[in-house]
């Protein structure tokens, strides 16, 4: 009877690990050489007595050597750390002879913990959701980018003036670089001011829910609160499920995100928000009965979230995301588990 099963099975020889290891070793040697060359060349250049304007160009190239080499080394070392963790996992199970289930502290393995819920309780419903990323950090990032490019543009401008003595057309590449740099600088400055406008004129968006944790088929109420002095064209609330997949491409780690579920669960159009009174909207939401639970592993994830998309008459459009955790049907909540443990003690 057992042999009948074989026709359904796949059989393969495990690929040799040697070729993969040689590849990683080669990559590691390459990045180390690049990094060391960069450091040595940087030292020579910095202590060179004949510092000319061409040296600064060379400096940029050498710094890129150091950065690319260092980044490659860090990338390879972090990849080997993940592989080591897997090996450790196997050895631990082999040593104890137990399943991993007994050792994992989480009552739901590979389901993210509830850290997306704010420590502070909501004012209307019990649970206040935390945002994925605040506007402040994106503004800070674009500010750094903008100031860096401004510095590069000023530096190029000085070089251009310095080279004018040789004639305008003798250094036309330098002028072309200056124009490109100024264009990038102008775009980043414009984007910086857009972000600044969002922060200063659009108030925070607050989401609160009355049920936690969520499960497929479960209904819950959600309250959206928007503050600020705003003239709103539309405010929409979406329930979204995404698949996230991270993969290595050379030494880069790329992440692809695909929406597999998107439902508009609330909408309000053409209204005003004053400074004295915030806008509030309560809407019932249902998690689809066929929904997959939230999932997170090293390189892959399934992520549920509520997204607020607001369009204003004068301010830029905002899209604010609030992750939620969906447990599988019938799973005990962490609260139940905690109470069970404390009760037994």
């Amino acid at each position, binding site marked *: 009877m057992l042999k009948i099963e074989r026709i359904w099975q796949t059989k393969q020889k495990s690929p040799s690990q040697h070729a993969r290891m040689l590849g990683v070793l080669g990559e590691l040697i390459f990045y180390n050489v690049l990094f060391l060359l960069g450091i040595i060349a940087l030292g020579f250049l910095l202590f060179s007595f004949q510092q000319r304007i061409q040296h600064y160009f060379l400096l940029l190239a050498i710094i890129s050597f150091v950065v690319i080499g260092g980044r490659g080394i860090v990338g390879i070392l972090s990849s080997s750390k993940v592989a080591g963790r897997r090996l450790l996992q196997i050895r631990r199970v082999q040593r104890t002879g137990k399943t991993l289930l007994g050792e994992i502290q989480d009552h739901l*393995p590979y389901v993210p913990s509830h850290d997306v819920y704010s420590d502070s309780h909501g004012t209307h419903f019990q649970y206040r959701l935390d945002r994925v990323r605040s506007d402040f950090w994106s503004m800070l990032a674009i500010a750094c980018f903008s100031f860096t490019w401004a510095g590069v543009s000023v530096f190029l401008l000085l070089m251009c003036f310095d080279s004018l003595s040789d004639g305008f057309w003798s250094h036309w590449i330098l002028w072309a670089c200056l124009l490109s740099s100024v264009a990038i600088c102008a775009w980043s400055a414009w984007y910086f001011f857009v972000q600044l406008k969002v922060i200063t004129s659009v108030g925070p968006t607050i989401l609160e829910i009355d049920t936690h944790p969520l499960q497929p088929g479960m209904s819950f109420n959600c309250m959206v609160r928007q503050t600020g002095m705003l003239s709103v064209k539309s405010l929409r609330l979406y329930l979204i499920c995404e698949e996230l997949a991270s993969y290595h491409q050379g030494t880069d780690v790329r992440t692809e995100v695909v929406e597999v579920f998107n439902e508009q669960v609330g909408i309000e159009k053409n209204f005003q928000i004053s400074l004295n009174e915030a806008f509030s909207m309560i809407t019932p939401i249902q998690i689809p009965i066929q929904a997959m639970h939230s999932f997170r*592993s090293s390189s*892959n994830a399934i992520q549920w979230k509520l997204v607020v998309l607001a369009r204003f008459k004068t301010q830029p459009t905002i899209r604010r995301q609030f992750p939620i955790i969906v447990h599988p*049907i019938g799973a005990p909540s962490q609260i139940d588990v905690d109470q069970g443990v404390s009760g037994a003690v």
Partner: protein
Amino acid sequence: MQFDPLISIHLDKPGKDYLPSDNLVCDYQIDAIEAEEILMVEVSVLWVSSGKGDEDSGIHFIRRRLADTAMDADLREMERIETTLPPTPLSYTGEILSIQWCVRIRLILKNGDEYVVDQEFRVGEMALPKMEGITA
């Protein structure tokens, strides 16, 4: 002419559909090879991700039998493992991510050859209708 060894895996549920926290019983057997040629047999119950991202896996159960420690025991004989499945992750088929549970048998021979056979099964709520993308 040299034939590959036969590795047979049999799960206790014919449809290979399990609920979370179900008990999984699996029999496996090795054939078409001499007992003296086998160095090690490893059986594991694990989930493996596939799709666009790098492969992730989570080992739930593992047992390794070595020819040295098995004394006179024949590693080819039918062996049974039992384990209680975890509540998560459930099997999933999405657009760029799939999660698949399987019983994996690894056979390593003394001459260095290695053979791997997977027997896939599903962990999920069977009462739910199937819908692509968000189906558990």
